């Protein structure tokens, strides 16, 4: 079976971490874009087509929650998985209330990560599918089709 790559954007100020995680994800066939800050992440979203963002909560400058809010405002269909280096799950929960798909604690188990990645990608695909169908219906009605 040929794997359809998920287009992932990694946002974290820990450069070594981003580098290694992107190499690992590329190795299993994902397509990776990296950004080292919230702002860089938003810029990347503007340029590239992204399915899922893996977003560190704690970053200098624009933090994870702010970045998440911006992402969801501009790109509501893009799914976000929050990464947290510390124990407070409240921030992660807050993130999920703001529309994040899920969260992971660092260091994350790779199987967990890929499972959540897949889940996020699936949710995005399904949502896009529903939108397409709704659009099709709408177009059909407009052009005086069967209905």
């Amino acid at each position, binding site marked *: 079976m040929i794997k359809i790559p998920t287009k992932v954007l990694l946002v974290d100020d820990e450069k070594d971490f981003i580098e290694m995680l992107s190499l690992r994800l590329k190795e299993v066939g994902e397509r990776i874009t990296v950004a080292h800050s919230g702002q860089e992440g938003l810029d990347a979203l503007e340029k590239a087509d992204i399915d899922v963002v893996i977003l560190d909560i704690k970053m200098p400058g624009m933090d994870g929650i702010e970045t998440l809010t911006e992402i969801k405002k501009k790109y509501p269909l893009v799914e976000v998985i929050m990464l947290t280096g510390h124990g*407070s*799950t*409240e921030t992660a929960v807050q993130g999920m209330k703001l529309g994040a798909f899920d969260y992971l604690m660092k260091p994350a188990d790779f199987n967990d990560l890929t499972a959540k990645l897949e889940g996020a990608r699936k949710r995005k695909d399904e949502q896009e599918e529903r939108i397409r169908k709704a659009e099709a219906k709408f177009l059909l009605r407009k052009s005086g089709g069967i209905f």
Partner: protein
Amino acid sequence: MKDIRLLLVDDEDDFRQTLAKRLAKKGIPPEQAENGEKALSILEKKEMDVVVLDVKMPGMDGIEVLHHIKKKHPRTEVIFLTGHAATQDGVDGIKTGAFDYLSKPIEFEHLLSKIKQAYDKIEREEEKLREAQFRNKMEHQMATTERLASLGTLAAGVAHEINNPLAIINESAGWLKLIISKEEMAQMPRKQDFEMALNKIEKGVDRARRITHQLLGFAKKDDSVMAEVNLSELADEAIQLVSREMANKEIEIIRETAPDTGTIWSDPYQLRQVLINLITNAIHATESGGKITVMLEAVNGEINLTVQDSGQGIPKENLDKIFEPFFSTKSPGEGTGLGLSVTRGIIEKLGGTIRVKSRLGHGTSFCITLPRYYEIKEGLDQDERIPFLDNLAKQSGSTQ
């Protein structure tokens, strides 16, 4: 008048019995002995506050009896009765440790007030002793609490900082593993060595991760969900989660729930964690074929939860340490030494207490008391944990 336990020792029967009657009328009925040997055997059986002791007796004399009393019953006070004008006897008595002496013929009121004085002295000494013990205990407890508080803060900070490099190691090792599992790498020289070493790295990371995650849970202050909790159902759930381990060791689990237990208002997730911790510990402590009992009862508006095992028990010298972080008797890699400190942290946060009782060879029981209703105080910072260094600075400025 308080119950003074008094022993009267004199070989003159008439004198002793008359005195005893008068003392009884004043509310101090004394025990009686007609010689030193008898007096000592009475003291052996029954503790006395005050002994009124005649110096001149056939057989063992007063000074000798006094020696014995002071050696074996240091808290008992002795009043000497000396012959007329035999001041030297009295002085010797006081030197040996008597409270005071009275010369015969004695004045009854005088004796009565001496007895009371001697008794007051005992009470004062006991009070002093109790105070000293209490102060000692408090100082010990405060030192422990302070040490744990700063240790907890430090540990959480370290854990947090370590998670990032740990994640880097984790991803690097995982990536290498992926690479060498590729088809093009099938012929790689010494491939197995690489695989072995990479697996070890991953296992090591996993171990470190368990520790850091637990540490962070340990320091977590304000992350609670309050709900109506049925402890009995929660216990069933926790037992279910560890049932495989229990079945492997053929351990029998016994549930005792008093009918009026009802529900409490608390944090179900954290309490479940507590139950799992305690039951898992019990399983580890219990030999194959042993028993674990989980008991629930309501007492004065509070709930008592007891987890009791039939394991080997905890040596006395370890009982003080088991709630401290990183104390573990399990071999490295098996226990983080954090289970019980996390447990206590949770219970105290939920307004409860945890106690341990243990007898070597008979088993251990942990008893938790939880209030039916409890409001968690809001923390200073709800959202973000204060960064490590800030916290340390705070810690040194004030004690939490």
